[in-house]
C-alpha cells in the first residue's frame, strides 16, 4: 500500500460503511491537494476476518490513526481489535470532513495526540448555523 509515511508522518485510515470512506478521501484531496495521507476502507461484504485483513493491508507498517464512521458496529469493533493488537494505532469515531482536513496538515505527532486533536477539530465543526 503506497502512502506518504516515508517522512515519519501518520497515516489516516478511514473505516466506514459503504463508500463513505472513499468519498471522504476524495473530498480531502479535492480541497487540499494532499494525496496519500488517507486510505479508505469499506466494510462492504466483510465479516470480521475479512475486515481485519482489509485494515491490516491499509495500515501497513504503523503508525496510524483509524477514523471510524460510527461509535459502534463492525467498523469500530474491527478497528478497536486491531489497535489493541498493534502499537502506534489510535482510533477516533464519528469521522467528519472537518477533522480530516485538520489531520492531514498535522501528522507529525504521536497517534494519540493526533486522535485527540481530530476529536476537537471534528467536534467544533458540528453546530447549528444562525437563523
Amino acid at each position: 500500500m503506497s502512502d506518504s509515511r516515508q517522512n515519519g508522518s501518520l497515516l489516516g485510515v478511514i473505516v466506514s460503511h459503504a463508500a463513505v470512506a472513499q468519498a471522504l478521501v476524495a473530498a480531502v484531496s479535492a480541497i487540499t491537494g494532499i494525496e496519500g495521507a488517507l486510505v479508505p476502507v469499506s466494510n462492504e461484504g466483510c465479516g470480521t476476518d475479512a475486515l481485519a485483513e482489509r485494515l491490516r493491508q491499509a495500515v501497513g507498517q504503523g503508525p496510524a490513526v483509524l477514523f471510524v464512521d460510527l461509535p459502534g458496529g463492525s467498523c469500530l469493533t474491527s478497528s478497536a481489535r486491531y489497535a489493541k493488537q498493534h502499537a502506534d494505532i489510535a482510533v477516533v469515531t464519528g469521522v467528519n470532513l472537518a477533522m480530516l482536513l485538520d489531520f492531514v496538515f498535522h501528522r507529525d505527532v504521536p497517534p494519540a495526540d493526533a486522535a485527540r486533536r481530530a476529536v476537537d477539530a471534528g467536534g467544533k465543526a458540528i453546530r447549528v448555523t444562525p437563523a
Partner: protein
Amino acid sequence: MSLALYRIDDRLIHGQVVVGWGQPLDCSFIVLVDDEVRQSDWEQDLYRMGVPPHIEVIFASVDDAAEKLPAWEADSRVGILLVGDIDTAAALTACANQIKRFNVGGIHHRAGRTERLRFVYLTDDEAAKLRQMAARGVEVTAQDVPSARAVPVGEFT
C-alpha cells in the same frame, strides 16, 4: 412483547441490528449470546459502545441463555437476541424448544464457504445445520434488513 427477532450475524451488534431492526421494532434490550464475549469485559465494552443508552445490553453464554429465555420471552419490552454463528444458534434451539424462528442476518465469506446470498456464505456443513434446524420446526429465513424479503431456508442452503 418479548423477543421479536432471533438473529445469526457474525458482526453481532452493529448498525443493521441497532438501527435497521432496532428502530422499527422499538427495541429496548439486546441479548448477545456468545460464550467468548461473555467472558471478556473488553469485548463487552466494545459492543456496548454501539448501542444507545436507552437500550439494555445483556451478555449471556449459551447455558445462561437457555435458562433465562423464558424470562426474556415474558419481558414486557421488545428485545432482539443475537448469536454470531450457526453452531450457537443450533445449540440454543436444541435446548430451548420455544424458539420458533431464526433470522440469518449476515454470515460472511471465509475459506470453505460459498456465496448463497449477497450477505450469506456457507460451507455445505453449515447449510446442512440450518436445514436440520428447520426440520426441527424452527422457521429459518435470511433477511439482512426489515425492508428486504425473508428468503426461506430452502432457497439458500
